[in-house]
């Protein structure tokens, strides 16, 4: 942006006489962002879908008075007024399975995505702010985790742990999906670190951790938020995949497990679409909605992408 561009736009604010940077500062951007957020169709659509499924996960299991694995009805029933999503090959209520499965899906997303976010941020900020040897070491760690074949590790773990829960699965996913986050945050921290206000914070006696937490991270808040959304979606997808191939939790119910069972018990050739379509569609819609939200958020936070 040339000096002249800055001048002309600086004129719009009465108090500015000197060359004013044109980037709308974050606070005005905050209020503007809210204005744009309420109008952004992608964001609203995505958020609505996710919230609907969340409500279903919260309330759904309460609407059924039996567990997901109980044998409650005649087997292989089509959806009807009694069994909204029909029954499985063994007479289990597909809707109950679906509702419980949604819960575990959201749990894995939150835990797995959250863990990955935390690890990625800690490593990214440290590498970006400290630089030098710390950066080199953390880069090596990032690269190692990136190339580890997660499937192979999972198979090994699966052999040794007979019983697996949702939480270990979430932790495992979280520990392997953070490298891209660390890279991206490291890069942004590098550029923010050389700004004058960071120097001024150092001159005020603030230590490294305080500078990262109070000066640098808040400037990236929109990016961090979007990162978490992507990690959440990624964790849900990974968990579904793991469950589908049988490497998921051995207790409880999940959407991927439903699909696994459906395929295992020949739902496809038998035409029992109500057993595998709801979980498949559910996963697709949740993750898809999250990604659409992310695109919408990008438009909200980045003035250049907005359609004015």
């Amino acid at each position, binding site marked *: 942006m*040339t*000096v*002249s*561009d*800055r*001048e*002309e*736009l*600086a*004129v*719009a*604010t*009465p*108090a*500015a*006489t*000197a*060359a*004013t940077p044109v980037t709308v500062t974050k606070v005005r951007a905050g209020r503007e962002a809210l204005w744009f957020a309420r109008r952004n169709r992608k964001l609203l659509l995505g958020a609505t879908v996710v919230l609907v499924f969340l409500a279903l996960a919260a309330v759904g299991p309460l609407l059924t008075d039996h567990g997901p694995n109980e044998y409650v009805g005649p087997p292989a029933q089509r959806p009807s007024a009694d069994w909204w999503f029909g029954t499985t090959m063994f007479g289990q209520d597909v809707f109950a399975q679906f509702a419980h499965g949604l819960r575990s899906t959201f749990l894995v997303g939150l835990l797995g995505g959250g863990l990955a976010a935390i690890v990625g941020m800690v490593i990214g900020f440290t590498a970006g702010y400290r630089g030098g040897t710390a950066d080199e070491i953390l880069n090596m760690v990032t690269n190692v985790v990136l190339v580890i074949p997660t499937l192979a590790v999972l198979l090994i773990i699966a052999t040794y742990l007979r019983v697996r829960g949702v939480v270990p699965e979430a932790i495992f996913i979280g520990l392997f999906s953070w490298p891209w986050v660390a890279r991206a945050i490291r890069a942004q921290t590098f550029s923010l670190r050389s700004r004058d206000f960071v120097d001024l914070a150092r001159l005020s006696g603030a230590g490294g951790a305080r500078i990262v937490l109070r000066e640098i991270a808040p400037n990236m808040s929109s990016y961090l938020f979007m990162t978490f959304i992507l990690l959440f979606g990624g964790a849900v997808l990974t968990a579904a995949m793991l469950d589908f191939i049988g490497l998921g939790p051995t207790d409880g119910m999940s959407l991927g497990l439903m699909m696994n069972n459906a395929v295992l018990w020949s739902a496809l050739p038998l035409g029992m679409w109500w057993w595998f379509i709801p979980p498949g569609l559910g996963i697709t819609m949740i993750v898809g909605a999250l990604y659409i939200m992310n695109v919408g958020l990008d438009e909200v936070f980045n003035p250049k992408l907005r359609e*004015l």
Partner: protein
Amino acid sequence: MSLRVDNLKVWYRTLRGDVQALDGVTFTVADGELVGLAGESGCGKSTLGKSLIRLDSRMRHVDGTVELDGKELPIWDSERMSSFRFKEVSIIPQYAMSAMNPTRRIGRLVAELLESRGVRPDGVRDELLRRLELVGLAPDVLDRYPIELSGGMKQRMVMVISTLLNPSLLIADEITSALDVSTQKAVAETLVGFRDRHFVKSTIFITHDLSLVYQIADSIIVMYAGRLAERAPTEALVTTPRHPYTQMLLSALPEVGVRYSDRRLTGIPGSPPSLLDPPTGCRFRDRCPLAFDKCATQPPFLEVAPDHQVACWKAF
């Protein structure tokens, strides 16, 4: 008259309304004249420079005409303007460092530019080489990439490229702002050299640095808040300024030899008005020590001495 601008108004569209960046500007530039356009940030000088060659997407031509060598410049019509750009009106942008495509060799860049204007590169090659030698650049610079040149060299290269087709009007938009003192002098003198050798006919030199423009300009126009405040031959403006803004601006300039302990300089209190909703009357009124009730109406831009025009009731 080489360039004639008549009541030019160019506003910016923003979310909060129109910023009246250029609000009724009238002046002429004679053939062979080097005019310095001086002012502080937000005065509209860059808008003026840009509107003479290319309005960007936020700018809106509201009123007024521009005439170059007797022909009207259709500045509001970017397509029709493109036949004038580079050939009759040319601009040297501020940041020469970023003005050249880093992935092209310079010679190729020039060739592509010429071809896009319908000029055969071979026809001007001799002239190009001659001019490179004039500004002190070796001919092999055409085979190099921009990144291999220093900042001063890039600036001079851009100057040669911009004036290659001998435009009638050259606009130099803050070309010295990011440069060191010594390079600044070389660049400013090169600009004068172009005019003296008739590579360009008239030049408008936009800057915020009054002492620099004093060195090379024939006359100086001072702008304030989107309007012209004063215009005079260089020596007259600096020795006998008639507009209070010019007077206060000149007295706020530190010079070598002036010390704080001997003579304290004073600035101008306050700040320029917002051009989103500009005040009526003279826009310098709030900061002017000589303001009186007549200032509530905008003073016209009138001649008070030969070639010396001011927009101030007190100067008439």
